[in-house]
């Protein structure tokens, strides 16, 4: 938990010696709170105070990185319980559970399906992140499956070996990559942790409750190992949600360091529909990593979309650059539509114009990412602003007509806009869904 300037001030010598470069200890404390200066600037700070301040500067939930290069996935580092309090920082990593006793054909099919699971939504590429390989047969089978996975897909790896021997061999195989190591056998936990500490790899393990996690992570951190992921056990969905909530809340609200680690939920529910809706619940409530079996695009697309929604910064709606966008092979006679630069609005309108197959120009006015009605109410989508935009983007040079289609929701501004811009205003449909037929009947 971050300390306030006043809390830090109480821990300083309060001698105002100015050695740190500041006039007073209080001024120095304020800068420390902002993390603008290092504590080393104070030559007199007591060693125990130094430890407290260093700890306080750590995030409440540790950041854990899996994979390397383009496949790197970061989880953890969350700061709030509710997204409206600030935002959720690192989207839940979505991964798939594979087992090494699958036949070659099965494994090939799985990898082929998984590699196709990426989609373009509102200008973002949304994709799955991880493959978890669980050992069910001998070491050689595990390594063979691992080798195939590494050849075919470029995703982070979660290793779930059943013995130390397999783990070590698999790690040789992974080279410079940073897999997440998963320990499913309590008897192997210490030896797995030893290997992970030495190689600086993250380790996930399961405990039945918060006390179990807390005791274990305290032991590990004392030994200097803290790249930890808490795998919350598969009880009923409500019990798992309770534990996920407990871990998050204890860490960010109570500063409970021993629970301040990313969390993981492995969904092995047999019913595919129930597995998917369970995963959806864990996206909203605090699972940093979700491992699934189902990999059908018709289920993964909605799940990734939900993740995109929940992890959007509430203070900063997704925006597109204000500009004139050309749809299809538009020319000087093509219709001109205008809307806001809120991404969701832009992409929805764009999709409908595309669906009409009528080439057109779409102008996005800078409304600071607000949607049509919100922007109108906040005076960011006004006749003045639209008229300015038409001039700024030199629409007169792009088309040979002066007809502008505005969203149906702002029909009330058409008279005013006609006067201010000199363009003839046509009122389009209120909902984007009507654009296609509107354009066809123009």
């Amino acid at each position, binding site marked *: 938990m971050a300390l306030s300037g006043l809390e830090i001030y109480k821990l300083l010598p309060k001698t105002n010696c100015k050695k740190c470069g500041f006039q007073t200890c209080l001024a120095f404390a304020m800068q420390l709170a902002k993390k603008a200066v290092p504590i080393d600037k104070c030559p007199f700070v007591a060693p125990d105070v130094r430890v407290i301040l260093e700890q306080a500067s750590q995030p409440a939930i540790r950041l854990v990185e899996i994979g390397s290069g383009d496949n790197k996935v970061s989880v953890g580092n969350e700061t709030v319980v*509710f*997204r*409206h309090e600030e935002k959720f920082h690192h989207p839940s990593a979505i991964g798939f559970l594979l087992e090494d006793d699958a036949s070659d054909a099965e494994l090939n099919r799985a990898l082929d399906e998984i590699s*196709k699971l990426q*989609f373009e*939504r509102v200008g973002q590429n949304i994709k799955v992140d991880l493959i978890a390989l669980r050992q069910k047969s001998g070491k050689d089978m595990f390594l063979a499956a691992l080798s195939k996975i590494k050849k075919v897909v470029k995703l982070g790896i979660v290793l779930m070996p059943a013995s130390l021997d397999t783990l070590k061999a698999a790690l040789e195989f992974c080279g410079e990559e940073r897999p997440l190591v998963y320990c499913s056998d309590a008897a192997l936990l210490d030896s797995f942790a030893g290997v992970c500490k030495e190689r600086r790899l993250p380790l996930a393990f399961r405990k039945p*409750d*918060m*006390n179990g996690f*807390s*005791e274990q992570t305290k032991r590990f951190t004392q030994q200097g190992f803290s790249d930890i992921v808490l795998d919350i056990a598969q009880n*009923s*969905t*409500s*019990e798992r*949600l*309770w534990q996920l*909530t*407990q871990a998050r*809340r*204890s860490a960010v*609200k*109570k500063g*409970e360091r*021993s*629970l301040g680690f990313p969390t993981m939920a492995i969904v092995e529910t047999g*019913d595919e*529909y*129930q597995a*998917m*809706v*369970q995963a*959806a*619940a864990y996206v*909203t*409530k605090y699972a940093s990593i979700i491992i699934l079996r189902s990999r*059908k*695009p*018709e*289920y993964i*697309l*909605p*799940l990734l*979309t*939900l993740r*995109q*929604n*929940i992890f*959007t910064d*509430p203070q900063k709606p997704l925006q597109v650059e204000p500009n004139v966008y050309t749809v299809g092979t538009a020319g000087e006679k093509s219709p001109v539509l205008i809307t806001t630069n809120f991404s*969701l609005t832009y992409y*929805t309108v764009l*999709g409908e114009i595309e669906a009409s197959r009528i080439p057109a120009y779409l102008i996005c006015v800078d409304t600071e990412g607000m*949607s049509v009605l919100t922007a109108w109410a906040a005076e960011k989508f006004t006749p003045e602003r639209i008229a300015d935009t038409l001039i700024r983007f030199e629409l007169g040079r792009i088309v040979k007509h002066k007809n502008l289609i505005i969203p149906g929701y702002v029909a009330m501004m058409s008279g005013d806009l006609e006067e201010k811009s000199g363009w003839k205003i046509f009122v389009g449909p209120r909902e984007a*869904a009507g654009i296609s037929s509107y354009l066809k009947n123009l």
Partner: protein
Amino acid sequence: MAEELRSQQMYGLRVHELKLGATREEGGSRSKVFKIGNQAAMPFLFKEGEIPYAPIIAAEVYDVPDDDWPQSLAEDLKGVSKNPVDWAAMMAEDAGADLVCLKLQGIHPDFGDKNSKDAGSLATALLKRVKTPLIILGCGQGDKDNEVLPYVSEVTKGERLLFGCVVQENYKTLTAACIADGHNIIAESPIDVNIAKQLNILISDIGMPQDRIAINPTIGALGYGLEYAYSIMERARSAALSGDKMLAMPFICFVGQEAWRAKEARVSEAESPLWGNARERGVMWEAMTAIAMLQAGADILTMRHPKAIKIVKAAIAELMKR
């Protein structure tokens, strides 16, 4: 024994308890009735406070057929979508919906311009055919709703139904009718906590008891602004449990009508092969929209696809295990 590590959040207030449907003894004719709300904790956190009732699902039924349905909906509801009474019966009996939500789209001047008598007799016919309470929605055109809904309220007097939606600019007529006829009311606000609260105050001021109001926070579908309503609901519910009585009403979320407008729920597999099976995709789009709303605090979900209803119903049963 070490003390159990816990971060428990306790609250001072409960959500109001709203009763839906009246039995013969209570002056109605419903054999199935429901209570919602009255929880003292955030969704499904049973260890922090009592959560006496499970969220319920109302099947969306329209008085006029919708010709703009994606293929999957059109196929799965074929045979019933032209007859609201059969449709309602199928949803309540076979699809497992808890109750029925009748949308009177056909009274809209542009979509059939049906009159009060038409709407009233349809509501009466539905009440005869199904055992559940009804949610009855107007067409969204203020003047026409004010003309038709009070009449429907009167002919269903005593059944303790849920009527909607009233908005800040137009709440008096329908609210007065529901007060007189013993019904509940849905207060709609545009993704805004302050307006939601203000409207609840206005409705209470003209005499509607607080435990007969449900909040419609105006949700967006998965992928289409769902996160806005999600956070508004979390904020409103936190405020309610922490002591704000004027926000302590159950939420109703119109899931089906929103989810099935989403492009991803509509386009065929031929158009978007990488998106997989269209029917399953649409069903999951609706189910996941519903799941997110449940996590934000929804008490009533209105839904459309029989399969999505079954999935979410099973998920609610799992979430209610304590």
